């Protein structure tokens, strides 16, 4: 595992950071100037940088990058609390399609993702046992049913849905404007992230191939890892803002960061941020170069740590004090982003138990760690 950025990755980080700093819309605590939430403008800017197609193979107009490259962008998007559908369209979808095999439908989607013209969302809730069913009549395929908790379904022009097709589970592409599609927003902890329950009634669908259980597992792992990298970026940024405040804000004639009580809270935040960053780095590496087991353990680990990571947002607000508790300040957006990550695809305690069960299974006397 290479733990240092390459010169190309540093250049990527700098160009994305520079662009996001210039895009005022990417600061969600400011009221939008144009009546939209600004994510469209940022999306076009990212497409012009070539970042929407970072993981799309070069033959479809993408950059052919890997998950470690994606991690560079994720940290930057997390730092500015970007609201766009990058994890859905630029990570979940290309990583799923590359495992399904080639098809014209898939090539068309990938080209659209790469040039930024098509935003695609993928629902992974219960991907192993979907409640959506596909029906073929006279060569035309339709789907019916519903998928819960689909991120970014409002921004997407195309929705990818896992559906039962006979005794298999297959992935289908659906035009978001097609008849029978309904999207109902569900409550989230984070106003910078949107999720929907999406329903389908006899909706026309294009088959993309079989979604085998191990493919669904891999894509879920990679989405968890990507979300962890985004959250680690957000946590790193709120730490920086908090430390800057602790240096500037004075009480009793001294910066509050000079008091041990405050300084130690800042170090606690740093410790949690660095543990989370390392977890995300390992996950990104394992997605590209590790075994399935390494990638899965890494995904479970970052998700299990998500509850602890959210304390960085809590502690930041404590240090900011009264101003941090108000909407006058951006700190609460960071807490909400971290809380949303802690609830995403299941509570952290469930994952903590899963990690514990796995270790018990593989450490019992007479069991070799390799068998587990």
């Amino acid at each position, binding site marked *: *595992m290479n*733990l*240092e950025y390459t010169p190309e990755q540093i250049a990527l980080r700098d160009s994305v950071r520079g662009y996001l700093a210039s895009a005022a819309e990417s600061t969600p605590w400011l009221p939008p100037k144009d009546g939209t939430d600004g994510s469209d403008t940022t999306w076009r800017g990212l497409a012009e940088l070539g970042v929407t197609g970072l993981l799309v193979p070069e033959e479809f107009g993408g950059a052919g990058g890997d998950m470690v490259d994606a991690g560079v962008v994720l940290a930057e998007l997390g730092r500015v609390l970007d609201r766009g559908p990058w994890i859905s369209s630029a990570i979940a979808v290309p990583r799923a399609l590359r495992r399904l095999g080639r098809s014209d439908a898939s090539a068309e989607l990938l080209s659209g993702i790469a040039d930024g013209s098509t935003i695609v969302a993928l629902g992974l809730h219960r991907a192993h046992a979907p409640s959506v069913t596909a029906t073929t009549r006279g060569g035309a395929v339709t789907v019916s049913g519903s998928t819960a908790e689909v991120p970014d379904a409002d921004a997407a022009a195309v929705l990818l849905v896992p559906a039962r097709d006979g005794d298999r589970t297959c992935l289908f592409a659906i035009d978001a404007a097609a008849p029978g599609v309904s999207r109902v927003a569900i409550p989230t902890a984070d106003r910078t992230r949107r999720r929907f329950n999406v329903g389908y009634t006899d909706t026309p669908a294009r088959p993309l191939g079989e979604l085998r259980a191990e493919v669904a597992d891999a894509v879920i792992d990679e989405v968890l890892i990507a979300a962890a990298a985004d959250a680690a970026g957000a946590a790193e940024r709120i730490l920086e803002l908090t*430390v800057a405040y*602790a*240096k500037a804000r004075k009480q009793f004639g*001294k*910066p509050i*960061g*000079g008091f*041990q009580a*405050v*300084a*130690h809270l*800042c*170090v*606690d935040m*740093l*410790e949690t941020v*660095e*543990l*989370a960053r*390392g*977890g995300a*780095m*390992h996950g990104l590496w394992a997605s590209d170069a590790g075994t399935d087991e390494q990638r899965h*353990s890494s995904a479970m*680990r970052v998700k*299990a*740590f998500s509850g602890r990571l959210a304390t960085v947002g809590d502690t930041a607000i404590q240090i900011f004090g009264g101003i941090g508790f108000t909407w006058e300040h951006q700190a609460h957006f960071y807490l909400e982003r971290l809380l949303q990550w802690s609830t995403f695809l299941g509570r952290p*305690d469930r*994952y*903590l*138990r*899963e*990690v*514990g*069960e796995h*270790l*018990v299974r593989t*450490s*019992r*006397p007479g069991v070799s760690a390799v068998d587990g």
Partner: protein
Amino acid sequence: MSLPGITARPLVTLTGDADFAEVFFDEVRLPEQALLGPLHGGWMVATTTLSHERANAARLYVEQQSRLRDFIVDSAEGGEESAAALEDPIILARIGEAAVRADLLEILCQRSISSALAGGDSFRTASLCKSVWGELGQDIAALGFDVLGPGRADGRWLRHRLASRALTIAGGTTQINKNITARRVLGLTNR
């Protein structure tokens, strides 16, 4: 240590062992070749020794990972009650929490080594490794003692539980370590 004038008084610690001692020197005469390093270069010798001790700390995660596995083996073999604890959701979450932190500590230590090799500033990560390690070691020892108590596994987990108090004291207390990290890494000062 057998020279005339040296008296060592063992200091019994929390665990009942005497791992270190109070040493008195009363007009002890030494041959010149007993001098380590140059004359008046003692601080350099001491800090070099300490830096080796700290470099060694970069692999301390291994000790906690294997201690956690020992706990699982001892519990599985320690009788019905402790074996049943390995199916208790609260104990499983505590095991998971320790396992996650031990693995994240491993990555943190490796990042510290990696950035030192790449010529970067490894202090940011290295300074955190020790505090994480100390608190993790205490949590694993507490988990073992809570499940196995003083009577099972030859009383090993009582000894671990008591000995683990030293983890956040020896080699610089966690609180002093945090002061140094706040100052050197985050730049938080009185002015």
